[in-house]
């Protein structure tokens, strides 16, 4: 049930300014508070949106982490697509059955 802890990390980060400060200033201590695998911790250290998506993090949680990392909207969508191309389909969570996705907006296709 490690996905639970990975999502909990991001849930706390999304809603708690103290956690956000800690993420910026003392990430290792913050990571220690959660029961994470090495792959998960590394994805959080590197802000690896694509891998986090493949690991099963819900987009409703992930998109706010991307905003926190100041990743622009269409770049965020593209990072998830790249994650699937690199790591394969989503492994767990609600999206476990989803595929690659494509760009559905005229605005995004221009980028």
């Amino acid at each position, binding site marked *: 049930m490690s996905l*639970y802890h990975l*999502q*909990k990390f991001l*849930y706390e980060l*999304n*809603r708690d300014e103290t956690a956000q400060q800690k993420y910026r200033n003392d990430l290792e201590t913050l990571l220690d508070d959660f029961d994470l695998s090495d792959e998960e911790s590394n994805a959080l250290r590197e802000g690896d949106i694509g891998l986090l*998506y493949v690991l099963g993090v*819900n*987009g*409703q*949680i*992930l*998109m*706010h982490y991307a*905003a*926190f990392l100041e990743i622009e*909207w269409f770049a965020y*969508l593209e990072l*998830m*697509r790249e994650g*699937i191309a690199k790591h394969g389909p989503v492994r767990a969570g*609600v*999206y476990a*059955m*989803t595929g*690659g*996705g*494509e*760009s*559905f*907006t*005229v*605005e*995004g296709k221009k980028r």
Partner: protein
Amino acid sequence: MSLVYAGVLSHAPGITGRAHLVENTAKRDEFYAALDKQRREIQDSGAEALIVIAAEHFANFFMNNMPAYCIGIGSQYEGPIEDPDWLKISRTKVPGAADLATRLTREVMKTVDVAYAEEWKFDHGIMVPLHFLTPEYDLPIIPVNINCQGPPLTPLHRAWAFGKALRRACDSVPEKIAVVGTGGISHWPATPDSGKINEKWDREFLDRLMRNDKDALLSYDDIQTYRDAGQGGFEIRTFIAIAAASGGDGELQFYTAELPIFAVGCTVARFSLDRTA
């Protein structure tokens, strides 16, 4: 009868957050005009409080204690929890209705088992509707959540039961109350498929909703909904609760699938209130 208004509207964060990226600005402004009309209808109803039945997105509720529904009984809330620059809505305080909400909760609890909360950080699921419906944030708000996010989800027939219980509760108090349900229909929010909309599925759902056809509304199955309407389709629970609460026919005031940058088929509707609900 103290329920004085019932309606539904979309809440996707792009509606405010990506407004500046829209190419089809005519359609966007038509949508905004429909929302402004809804604002005036609520105002004209004389509502003293607005219940917002939302499908929030892991802002307050997580799998460490995920209630089927929760009612806010606080005296004040804050929002948005998201980065204000991202959502394009400034962070603000929103008045609650502690006493009224507590009375409604006690009445609802007679038949439906709600959680309650004295604090709540509103996410886009509530802030986007409030931005259009009470832009001065001067109407007391009672937030409600239905779990549309983390399985096991609230069953559709229980979302209906909740709507009925909420109507009974509203009709048991002297205050005039408006209620809106805010969700999406088919959509794939915050995923690589963001912007995908199944217009056919949406129109079929909206047809059932406007007819307030209980059996047809409750016949959806989560596995099929996920396949045809995405995870966002789970949010039909909020619209179904409004149909149950209103007990009357709906009037679809606006729908478009032509704003995929908003990542949802944009919807505005109101319901007549059946006194015998």
